[in-house]
Every structure is written in structure tokens, then in C-alpha cells.
């Protein structure tokens, strides 16, 4: 894969290419944990959602939660990936206080999902296809809390055993922008599928970022892994910083040490966590408490038949059926709720206008207040009604924006609001003529000027709109002015 020069990073010795691969950990949306019946609810009191299995009491055994298997298969299908009808759970052995069993149950050699791909639209307009190497199911660990006691750490096992999907990309990403777009797209697919809520603030989605640099055309450089980055913005920052750090080392004649690093968002930099020499020997082996996970193709086909329409298909349909630009379509489909809102507004109306309103007015206003579209104060029905009022020329575009604001803050039926507040457009020619006559009479010099310079008509339009409170039909004002001023 060649990298367009715009993505290269300039160094003292020439251009560098950054190579990125991501391991995204996505919490499976399910009521119970991967191998126990304990709740996965977020935010319970410490150790409120812990079963005997999660606490690794003697003699406790894991039993697979079929809902998690279903979600992993559905995710695999959403990533156009191969579903493995037989997969194996392994034990990854290491000691840590928040890992009660002394091993994490994961899938090492035989994951449930194999190779797939994700098509990503990068903001610069390019479209890249990112390879997925695998998706596997594994248990989350608990949480160690170090700041509650001078010499002891506390352990909260609420997350211990919660199901995660680890989605491993190929090292196909070539810039922080691509990486951010990839995670955004992945998150969008997961949310469409309902297999992960994608809530990065709650830790439902986090990424280990593998970064290396090389001169274009050279073999891959030594990589560093930045662990547990928990926002898309931080992923971008971590890559930018790490690539620059590696380039600086190499250009000064040094070499990169393969190691695990942490990203410090406060300082915007990565720092060393442990080197390869300190790396654990995890002693993976098949978990003898669990049989290999097996299902048939009919099971997969059944799940496939009930998948929702995913962002790529929806985007293609929007572009085709609503004649939208690729950009508008991809913005609208990024969130399933946005796409559904748009479709409701666009139904039987001018799709382009609907798209503009949803993308600009609505999304802008939602972002300003940090609101989700699902809790938008203006419903799709209300926005549709506003569009109808514009379309039938009951109100002007400008009034429509004011009306939107009123509906946003006060609610109510837009049509009734227009009636009640007298927002109707003035199309009565006699009334407009009277306003024009008054203004022309009061400004004879301007009227004279307009004959020489027709652009001055704009000033008159503004005056008329002002005295009509914005309600005069702009087209009617223009036509009448031209006649009165003799242009």
C-alpha cells in the first residue's frame, strides 16, 4: 500500500511514513458477564456485581453466556469477516490483584471471527479499506484503586469477567486521521449492530495503538504499543506524539526499543510502561474448563438474516434514493439515530433540504448543547413541519430558523406557532407596495442612485424586510422594487 505524500511526516532527513495497527477492546452489550450470571451494569457500588465465579472461589467453573457469542458473531458479520464455526477459549496466565483467577480467559489461537474489512472515509475525501485480522472474545479484568489508602490498594471486581470483543486491525493505517476515522467507523458499526454501546467515557470502547515509522518503501520499523487509549481524540494525539518521538530518535541515530507505553492526556505525550524484556510469558493453553465453542452455518445465517442495515449500505441507499452527495450521506449515516431522524424528515419532502437542516441546524444545535439526537428537543415531526411551511412559502427561510429556535426552547406545533405569533410571510402586494413607497419617498437620493447602480437595490430590500419584521416575501419585494425604481 503506498501512502499519498500528504500523510507523510516531514523530518530533518526527509519524509517518514507512520504505520499504525489498532487493537480495539469493545465491551459486548449483554445483561450478564461472559462466563457468569453477574450483571454488567455500569456504576454499581464497588464489588456489587460479583458472582462466585468472578471472584474465582475454589471449585467455581465458567459457563459461556450465549448472548455474548451471538453478539460476537453479529459483529463479525458487520465487519464482513469470516465466522469461525469452531473456536477455542485459552487461558492467559498472569498475576494481578484485579485478575482473581490468575488468568484471563481469552481466545488466542482460534478466535471466533477471522479476517474482515472496514471501509473508512477519511476527512480529506479519500476512502481507505482497513483489514481486520481477527475478533475474539475475552474477559475484562477488575479495577485496582490505588489512592484510597496510604499503603493498600483496593480492588473492585464489578468489571471482572465482563465480555470484551478484541478487534485487531492489520497495520493498514497511515496517519492519525485515518486511525481516528477507522475507530469512528468501527464505533458506528458496533452501535448500529447494538453489540457495543461505544461509550468511551465509560470505558466501553478503548484501544491499544501500535505505532512504528519508516522511510517510504522500507520494511516495517520496530513498533511501540500504546495501551488503553480511551478517546478518539487521544488516539490521534498519541499517534502524532509517538510518531514524532520515534522519528526524532531515529534521526539522531538511535533505535526504537519495542515496548509498551502509556498515553498521558494531560501532557499529551506517551511514556514507557514496560519493555519487551519485562514482557510476561502468558503461558497460553486451552481452558480445560470449557469445551471448544462450536455452532453451525445455519446459526450464522439466521443471525445474518436479521442484521440491521449497516452504515455502508445505508450511505449507498441515501446517495441513490435521495440524490445526496457522498459527504452528506456519510455524515447522516454515522449515527443510526441521526440516519433514522433524517429519513423521517425527508420522507415525502425535499431530501436535500432535509439533509441540510439535519446536518447544519439540528446537529449544530445538538453539539452546542452536548445533546444526543435521541434526546433532541425538536422531533423529526416538528422539523418536517417547519420544512413544509418553508416549502409552501408560508414562512421564509430566515423565519424558519427563528421558528426552529422557538420550537427548540419552547416546544409546540410549528404551524400553530406561526399562526399564533404572526410569523406568516407577507405576500399581500398592496402592503408591500405601501412600505416601498414610504421608503422611496424618504430616500430620494438613494432611489436616484439605484438607477445608476442597480446593486443599491439590496439596501432597499434590507429596509423593506426590516420594516416588515422579516415577514415580507423576498421575491415579491424584489419584483416590486425593480418596477418602482424603474430598473
Amino acid at each position: 500500500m503506498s501512502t499519498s505524500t500528504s500523510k507523510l511526516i516531514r523530518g530533518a532527513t526527509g519524509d517518514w511514513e507512520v504505520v499504525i495497527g489498532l487493537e480495539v477492546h469493545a465491551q459486548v452489550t449483554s445483561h450478564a458477564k461472559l462466563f457468569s450470571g453477574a450483571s454488567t451494569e455500569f456504576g454499581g457500588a464497588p464489588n456489587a456485581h460479583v458472582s462466585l465465579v468472578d471472584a474465582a472461589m475454589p471449585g467455581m467453573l465458567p459457563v459461556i453466556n450465549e448472548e455474548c457469542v451471538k453478539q460476537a458473531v453479529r459483529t463479525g458479520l458487520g465487519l464482513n469477516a469470516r465466522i469461525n464455526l469452531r473456536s477455542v477459549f485459552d487461558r492467559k496466565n498472569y498475576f494481578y490483584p484485579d485478575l482473581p483467577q490468575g488468568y484471563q480467559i481469552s481466545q488466542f489461537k482460534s478466535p471466533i471471527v477471522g479476517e474482515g474489512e472496514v471501509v473508512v472515509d477519511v476527512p480529506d475525501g479519500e476512502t481507505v479499506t482497513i483489514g481486520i485480522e481477527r475478533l475474539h472474545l475475552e474477559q475484562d479484568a477488575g479495577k485496582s484503586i490505588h489512592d484510597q489508602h496510604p499503603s493498600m490498594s483496593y480492588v473492585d471486581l464489578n468489571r471482572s469477567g465482563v465480555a470484551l470483543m478484541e478487534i485487531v486491525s492489520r497495520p493498514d493505517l497511515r496517519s492519525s486521521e485515518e486511525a481516528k476515522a477507522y475507530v469512528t467507523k468501527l464505533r458506528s458499526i458496533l452501535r448500529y449492530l447494538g453489540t457495543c454501546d461505544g461509550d468511551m467515557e465509560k470505558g466501553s470502547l478503548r484501544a491499544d495503538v501500535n505505532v512504528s515509522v519508516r522511510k517510504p518503501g522500507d520494511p516495517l520499523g520496530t513498533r511501540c504499543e500504546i495501551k488503553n487509549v480511551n478517546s478518539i481524540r487521544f488516539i490521534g494525539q498519541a499517534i502524532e506524539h509517538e510518531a514524532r518521538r520515534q522519528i526524532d530518535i531515529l534521526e539522531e541515530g538511535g533505535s526504537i526499543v519495542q515496548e509498551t507505553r502509556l498515553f498521558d492526556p494531560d501532557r499529551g505525550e506517551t511514556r514507557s510502561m514496560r519493555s519487551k524484556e519485562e514482557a510476561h510469558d502468558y503461558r497460553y493453553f486451552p481452558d480445560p474448563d470449557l469445551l471448544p465453542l462450536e455452532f453451525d452455518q445455519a446459526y450464522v445465517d439466521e443471525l445474518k438474516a436479521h442484521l440491521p442495515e449497516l452504515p455502508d449500505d445505508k450511505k449507498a441507499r441515501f446517495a441513490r434514493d435521495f440524490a445526496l452527495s457522498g459527504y452528506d450521506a456519510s455524515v447522516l449515516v454515522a449515527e443510526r439515530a441521526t440516519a433514522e431522524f433524517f429519513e423521517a424528515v425527508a420522507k415525502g419532502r425535499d431530501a436535500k433540504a432535509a439533509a441540510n437542516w439535519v446536518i447544519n441546524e439540528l446537529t449544530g444545535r445538538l453539539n452546542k448543547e452536548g445533546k444526543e439526537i435521541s434526546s433532541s428537543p425538536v422531533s423529526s415531526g416538528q422539523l418536517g413541519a417547519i420544512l413544509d411551511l418553508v416549502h409552501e412559502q408560508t414562512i421564509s427561510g430566515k423565519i424558519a430558523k427563528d421558528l426552529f429556535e422557538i420550537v427548540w426552547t419552547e416546544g409546540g406545533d410549528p404551524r400553530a406557532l406561526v399562526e399564533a405569533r404572526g410569523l406568516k410571510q407577507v405576500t399581500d402586494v398592496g402592503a408591500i407596495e405601501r412600505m416601498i413607497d414610504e421608503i422611496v419617498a424618504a430616500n430620494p437620493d438613494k432611489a436616484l442612485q439605484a438607477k445608476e447602480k442597480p446593486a443599491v437595490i439590496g439596501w432597499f430590500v434590507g429596509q423593506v424586510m426590516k420594516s416588515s419584521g422579516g415577514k415580507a416575501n423576498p421575491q415579491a419585494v424584489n419584483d416590486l422594487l425593480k418596477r418602482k425604481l424603474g430598473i
Partner: protein
Amino acid sequence: MDELTSLTLAQARTGLAKKDFTAVELADAHLAAMERARALNAYVLETPERASAMAKAADARIAKGTAGPLEGIPLAIKDLFATENVRTTACSKILGDFSPAYESSVTENLWRDGAVLLGKTNNDEFAMGSSNETSAFGPVISPWRRKGSNTPLVPGGSSGGSAAAVAANLALGATGTDTGGSIRQPASFTGIVGIKPTYGRCSRWGTVAFASSLDQAGPFARTVRDTAILMRSMAGYDEKDATSVDTPVPDYEAAVGKSIKGMRIGIPKQYRIDGMPAEIETLWQQGGAWLKAAGAELVEVSLPHTKYALPAYYIVAPAEASSNLARYDGVRYGLRVPGQDVNGMYEKTRAEGFGPEVRRRIMIGTYVLSAGYYDAYYLRAQQVRTLIKKDFEDCFNAGVDAMLTPATPSAAFGIGEKGKADPVEMYLNDVFTVTVNMAGLPGIAVPAGVDGQGLPLGLQLIGRPFDEEALFSLAHVIEKAAGTFHPKSWW
């Protein structure tokens, strides 16, 4: 009271039903015998209060006519089974005074059927051992002695306490677990019957794990019939154990006394090992002759990979154990020895909490799973395991119904006699039993005679998967011919 403790389980069942005595009387007789037999160190915890309460409840159910199949039968439970609010330690210091908030599925099944808990029995620490000498509570002394000798002998292991308790009439039956022979070898050493069921027949839920792919619970009793009665209650599908098999539990007792006419019994030639005492060879032939006399056909069979079973077993079992025992880390329960930091705490806790044999196996297991060694050891051992399994399948497919082998390569040995210098000497005890665990098959040990020093010797019968019934029928034929064996009380 001695008459009550020397009853068979089946006789006690009849006596209770006929109200010849009460469950409370039966329990009291056993509790008194246990108290007198403390020198054997068979029990690590006696639970007289719980026994009395359970016996009283059993009597009430008998009176009401709602008695279960094991109503009022007093049993000993290996300390590997979690018993709710009753100390459960796997005979390791690392569990300290751990008292589980849950009951193992196997014991839950026994209580469901009306059985009474007498106490928890001694075992090798985490079931790792073949002599019961690795227990944190000290060794169990076998109720058996060599003719004219006071040398204390081992009862075998790891379920040595359960075997000794049953042999010494300190319980009508007991539970054991068998990972490489831990039921069959002590049964053989103490002259009683013990069966390791097919892997997946009894739930492993709530039983402290040693090697998950090999561990299986099973009963001990003084007769084949008694063992069959207990087996029916212990067995059954459990959705909490993913390796448990959902197949109906037959009436095993009905198989006891059933004709074995026409059954084909394989005699595996690879079990004729170098240095095996002549007495054992003779006993083996005698066993075959008894089966033949009862109408079975004997055929020599070949299990060519037998010689690799023991080394492969001592890779697979420690590998799984090294991981299973990682949870004993001092963080949540059991022993904690403070250290400088968390790693120091782990090291001190585990060094102090585990005995030398457990530490050895954790180290072996950690080694064979390590990067660079996994393929050479663990993976190869698993391949060997597949071949061992296939050896048996080939024989069964050729029409063999079961196999007859010696249970152990020797009779019981003296405490401290074996394995001091070389642990492998101890591991060799499992040579006839580990193949069965590696293949996941059922195997029963049944007493068949005594050696020149008057110590009991057992034979082993190995069956097809989930054909425990054939084993009960065949073992009963041997029992009828050989009789039963009881140690003379010296304690």
C-alpha cells in the same frame, strides 16, 4: 454400636426403612467410632452437630414416608468438595480456615437424597499425591498393617482419608476425586471398592480443581452394590459445569448381579510391566479366571501407547494445576503473608501456603507451558493423550466390552518409604490408573485378594464411556468370588 458401623450401606438402608434403628443412632455410632479412630487421622474435620441435625431431619422424613434413596446414610466427604459453611481446605495451608458460601454439586446431590455428613476427610494437598503424605494435616495411617508388624502404612492417595474411613468402618461410604488414580489406588490399598466414573458423569462444580480435564468425582464403599448406590446419587448433568454430559443416570444398582455371560474382556498386554510382584500377576490371572467362569470371554488386547501415559500425564496434570492454583494468591481468601509489595505478598503467601509437592507441580506445570517449551511438552503430551484414547477406542470398536488390569503395581507401602529421594518413585504408583483419566473412561477398583503380608490387593476394570453399569456387573463377579476384606482394629 459396632454392629451399626459394620453394616453395608445397603443393609443400613434396609434397617432404616424397617425402623430397626434410627438415622440418629446410625450417625451416633459412626461419630463414636470416629472419635476412637482419631489415630488414623482419616478425618480433618468432624461435624457431629451437622451430622445430628441431618440425621434428625432424615428420621423425620423416614417417619413421614418421604425418604430419599440415601436417607439417613452417614458419609465422609473428601476435603476437596466445598461444603457450605463447613471448613474446606483441600488439606492445604493456603486455604486456611476457608469456609465456602456454597455447596459442591456432588455433595448437594447426596444431601438431596438424604445422606448425612459425618465430616471432611484427609487427602493429599490439592489431591497431589499417591500416599496421603502431602496433606497439611499430616498423613493418614492405614487401618491395615502387615502381618506381625506395627509399621504404619499409607492408605494410598490422594483420597486416603476417605478410603481409610470406609475401610475402618468410620463411614458407610465416602466421596473421592480421581485425577490419575486417586480413588482406585487408595481403594485398592485399603481393600474397598472405588470407582472413577466417565469424565463428565459427575459435576466438577464446587470441587477444588487439580487438573480440570482429568478430575472426576466418584464414590468409595465396602461393597460393589454400595458403590453403585452412591454413584447414582452423585452422578448427573449440571449446567454449571460446561464439561458435564447431559445423559440420563441409570439405576447402577440394577447392574449389580447381572449376568456377564458373553461379555468380552480385554487383557492389555502392555500392563504386564517389569518388576511387578508375582502375587499381582497371579491375582490378575485369578481375576480373569473368575470372569471366565462366570461366562465372560477373555481376549488379549494391545494398548500400544500405554508406556507414554505416565510421562504425558505428569505434563498435562501439572500444567493445568499450575494455572488452576493461581487463584490462591492471598488477595481474596485463605492465607495471606504480608510482603514489601504485592509481588512480595504473592511470593511469601504461596511459598508458605503450598507444600513441597504442590510447589514442585506448579513449577513443572509453569515450565511445560512456557514459551519455547509448550510445543515440546504440553502439545506433545496432548497428542499422546489422543493416541491413548484411540488405543482404547480401537479395542472397544473391535468388540471388547471392558478391560481387566491390576489396580496398582504393589500393595500399600510404609509411611515415608517412597518418594523421599525421587518423586518419580511415587508417581509410578499411578502407572495402571492414569491411562483411564487420560482417555476419560470409567474405571473401578475392586478388592481381589491379599498379598503374602496380608495386605489387600485390587483389580481394575476399565469400561466404555458411560458404561459404568458393565463395571458394576463385572466387579460384582470378582467380589463374589474373592469375598470382602476388613482390617482388624488396632486403633
